């Protein structure tokens, strides 16, 4: 499988919505 690893996830706000079945990405999220 393609694995989206944590180095490439840096500073993205990764938002998991298990009930709605979607994942969101927002740049510059850590501030």
């Amino acid at each position, binding site marked *: 499988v393609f*694995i*989206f690893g*944590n180095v490439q996830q*840096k500073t993205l706000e990764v938002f*998991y*919505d298990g*009930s709605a079945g979607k*994942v969101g*990405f927002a740049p510059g999220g*850590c501030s």
Partner: protein
Amino acid sequence: KIAENHHSHTIEVSSLLPSTSCKSPTKVLSSHDNKASLEVVHKYGPCSRLNQDKTIAAPTHAEILLQDQSRVKSIHSRLSNSKASGGNDVKVIDATTVPAKDGSVVGSGNYIVTVGLGTPQKQLSLIFDTGSDITWTQCQPCAKSCYKQKEQIFDPSQSTSYTNISCSSSICSSLTSATGNTPGCASSTCVYGIQYGDSSFSVGFFGTDKLTLTSTDAFNSIYFGCGQNNQGLFGGSAGLLGLGRDKLSVVSQTAQKYSKIFSYCLPSSSSSTGFLTFGGSASKNSKFTPLSTISAGPSFYGLDFSGISVGGTKLAISASVFSNAGAIIDSGTVISRLPPAAYSALRASFRKLMSKYPLTSALSILDTCYDFSNYSTISVPKIGFFFSSGIEVDIDATGILYANRISQVCLAFAGNSDATD
């Protein structure tokens, strides 16, 4: 330190290595409007409480990458095993043996949060892992073995809210899907066992206790593993916080309050901090893509990945290269792994755009490394991920390169060895 223009990042070479001091002192992360936020630190960085203890040596980058490779191998085997055998070849756990069930190596998982467990609560630093399901920590009296951890090992006999799960409880049998192993039974108490790759495992009593996320967000009886026999590359952390999709993960166990919503932000360098939030709502500028389920590994968060751009140009890779392999997002895997055809296209395009810089020797699984000793700033092509929903996610400049030292800075991607991985 990073100037953006349309297709490339200009990076100050000095910013490639983390500073030795913690750049964002611990801020009080608040709990409000039905969400709980915890601070995320890099396990081996200057912001981590574990880092103060010099007796727990941080692994070298080569060791971290090697651990990462065994994690990826175990994820691939988890997916191919159940595909091949049509289900989990589960084994019965007893308190001494753990079958060679491939899980995912957590030694490489390098982001931790601190939670409270028990009454009175004890602070424990746990690796958070979207690639596995159960939460466990080492427990006194460490009947068989405990590895060295920074904080005091949790003692359930000192917690007034701890209870053991009996073997006959349905929760006990539901461990099979969360760990891939049939639970055992010792003096009528449910025994769990989870094996991560070939080097680390945790076996012990399955129980419940109070989990305190923040001063106002606590859950009275969260199911977790109280490890009496633990071995592995956990770098001083007290155990693991499982965020997978199984019903025993902390995400499912707190669904009543947070409806399986959680988010995190991993800091740009090991000397800064991020967060893990349960509940809440997404940032306004979020781009969404559907979650998919990989039948061979329903606990993983599957994504429909469709392409890569380098320097603003989408690479000519057929979508079937991605759809054949499937894709997951995993907070515990360090380096993204691409199907071989995709990685060789990325590698060729990146090397072409970086041809003015001198290549140097490879670093473990990373085969495209540069010597930037004679440069103060560099220009690096932007890289973006495309998903089937049509969105493109730009990878941050700090997510494109992995620096061992200034004279060995590598493209932070690796190829899978087999297209069907």
